[in-house]
């Protein structure tokens, strides 16, 4: 039957697409572990004759890399806390209550996703200079929180929908306060989902280039540092390759760890 005939075609298609996605990642990995001078030779083999940490260490020891990596982690951490602290209550309200204006609020929160960093960053810079937030990690985290907030609200609301309201009511009937019922019943059940939301926020913040570049000068996050090194300082190729590879590693690890929840998470964000 047709199904049997389609089978090899299916595997070939899947293999081709997989190769298309994976090959460039392998290549940048190879480039980061090719000795620096070998990167500029011709002809150059795809797999280097000898692997070396030279290129990677050159990048890693370049001025500002270590500090901006730390900055990126810190910004992501602050963003996760802010986004959850602000977004989870709103997500809870949207999932548990029916109230006048709910649909309007939900829709306007979703609509904010349509106005990303490119539009917000420049005017925010002017405000941040006035508010003494320019070139601070807190400032970058505040912008990343805006970007993450609609996603956090949507993800958390879908998580709270998944926690049966009956259990919460049972706790209320048995004498818990609303806050108590939330803390003792809802929160433990929602915890894995909230962790997923935090991971989503981490990836968003770790990868954000535009706002971080524009809002910082000395206190660069990693993408801002690399962007600036390319945009204005003309960094050499070996720096670029190792930098690119270094930026994708955490994301690859995270996506691998949460692969089972991938569809749920990113799927929810686009609903």
């Amino acid at each position, binding site marked *: 039957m*047709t199904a049997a005939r389609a089978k090899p075609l*299916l595997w070939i298609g*899947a293999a081709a*697409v*997989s190769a298309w*996605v*994976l090959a*460039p990642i392998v*290549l940048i990995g190879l480039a980061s572990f090719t000795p620096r001078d070998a990167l500029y*030779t*011709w*002809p*150059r083999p*795809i797999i280097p004759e000898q692997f070396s940490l030279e290129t990677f260490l050159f990048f890693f020891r370049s001025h500002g890399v270590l500090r901006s990596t730390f900055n990126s982690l810190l910004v992501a951490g602050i963003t996760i806390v802010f986004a959850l602290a602000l977004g989870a*209550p*709103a997500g809870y*309200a*949207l999932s548990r*209550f029916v*109230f006048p204006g709910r649909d309007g*609020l939900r*829709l306007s929160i979703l609509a*904010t996703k*349509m*106005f*990303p960093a*490119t*539009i*917000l960053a*420049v*005017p*925010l*810079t*002017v405000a941040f200079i006035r508010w003494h937030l320019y070139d601070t990690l807190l400032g970058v985290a505040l912008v990343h*929180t*805006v970007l993450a*907030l609609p996603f956090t609200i949507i993800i958390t609301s879908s998580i709270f929908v998944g926690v049966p*309201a*009956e259990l919460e009511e049972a706790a209320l009937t048995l004498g818990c306060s609303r806050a108590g019922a939330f803390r003792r019943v809802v929160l433990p059940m929602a915890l894995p989902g909230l962790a997923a939301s935090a991971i989503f926020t981490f990836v968003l913040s770790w*990868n954000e280039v*535009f706002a971080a*570049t*524009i809002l910082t000068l000395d206190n660069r996050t990693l*993408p801002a540092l*690399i962007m600036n090194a390319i*945009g204005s300082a003309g960094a050499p*190729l070996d720096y*670029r*390759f190792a930098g*690119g590879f270094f*930026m*994708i590693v955490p*994301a*690859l690890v995270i*996506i691998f760890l949460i692969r089972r929840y*991938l*569809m749920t998470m*990113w799927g929810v964000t*686009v*609903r």
Partner: protein
Amino acid sequence: MSHMMIRRRSWVPYALMVPALLYLAVFFVYPLLEAFVLSFRGEGGRFTLEFFRQMAGDTYFRGAVRNSFLLTLLVVPLQLIIALLISLIVNTRFRAASTFLYICAIPLGISDLAAGLIWLSVFTERGYLNTILGGLGLTAQPITFLTPERLDWLYGAIVVTEVWRATAIVMVILVAGLQLVPRDYLEAADVFGARPWQKLWRITLPLLMPSLQAALMIRTILALQLFATVITLSGRLVPVLAGEAYFWYSTYRNFHVASAYAVLIMVISFLITFLYLRLLRTKAEALA
């Protein structure tokens, strides 16, 4: 849903929403308004079109508008087609479907900057593409692809990178959409002896339409944000709108013209959303 929860007109949900809404007011609504102020207010607080004139008179402006639209027109259809292919493969639930889905989702975690650098290692003069071409004996000398003399190659490199990076988000939308297509419909079609392409054309695709439209809209608007990919591969050889906002801010330190670009991107995004909603009659909910 219980009576206890919905009966009362409670202040609780509003109290829970207020922090997030206040935050969005300060860090979202305010900068949007500020963008207009910065780009329209001249000296002494008077209304002026001077900054927009400056923007439109700049040598890079026309190229930026053209490139942004052209790249969107090239990239978005390719992304939709490839994402549709991937999601149809995933939806067959063949043995390796979940591994395949994971592999295809990897670019979700990769920034435009990193993606640009990845493909730079392919397209640069001593890059992998030249290695392969040379290895196959097709070229004797490495070809410089990323140069103003080879605009088509520059364009091609940007398109390839964007398709590689951002097809995943379209795929996620479509895979989620495919899960909503009822299996019984397809089984019924089997009973009536429908061919696979008939099932695809008559059942799957029509039912997938809302997801396709949502993906189309989201990707079109995000394509206007195109920035780091283009700069890593072309510098300013292929100017784009968001890139110009960056250069006007970081190189010329001109908030006003940079804001004018931000306003322009905002207006175009609005128009595109509006047009799509009108033309495709997408439900507003689907855009989320």
